[in-house]
């Protein structure tokens, strides 16, 4: 991973409350796992920035190295890596995700 990609990712995840690295866009997700995460955030009414990794092969590889996490989607909240699709789904189902977003002042309680 080049430093530039690393810096670019760091910059993106720290300058947005929620960042979703995904395949496709929220309107046209190109993978079922990415689509699931989009639906979760839409359901919660949480605003997020999204990055389509299919647009940039350096970011696509870079995001995997950044978190030592081999798959996309990946979610960041306030700069911290929270997980991929499975963890998002689990946290959504248990209510932890909403609690976290409220605690971080991203969602109103």
């Amino acid at each position, binding site marked *: 991973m080049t430093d530039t990609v690393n810096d670019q990712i760091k910059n993106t995840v720290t300058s947005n409350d929620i960042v979703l690295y995904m395949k496709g866009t929220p309107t046209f997700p190109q993978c079922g*796992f990415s689509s699931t995460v989009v639906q979760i955030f839409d359901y919660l009414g949480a605003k997020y920035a999204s990055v389509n990794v299919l647009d940039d092969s350096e970011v696509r590889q870079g995001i*995997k190295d950044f978190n*030592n*996490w*081999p*798959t996309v989607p990946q979610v960041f909240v306030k700069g911290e*890596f*929270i*997980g*991929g*699709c*499975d*963890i998002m789904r*689990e946290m959504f189902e248990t209510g932890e995700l909403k609690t976290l977003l409220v605690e971080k002042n991203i969602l109103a309680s």
Partner: protein
Amino acid sequence: MAMHADDIIAMIKEALPDAIVELVDLAGDGDHYKAIITSPSFAGLSRIAQHQKVYGALKGKMGGELHALALETKAE
């Protein structure tokens, strides 16, 4: 591109010998699986760390040869 279910289970068990692994072929195409893994070695770890342990066991096949492996991990 696809991986056999037996190979996936064997790789996870090699790295986590105490694990109980249940594998479901979601689409019947040998490329979309869900694994439910119970291992005492997950105790005290965050979900992220638990999943990273499983990805580590698969030695880079995840995201490559293996496109989709939904994970559910628990300590007991």
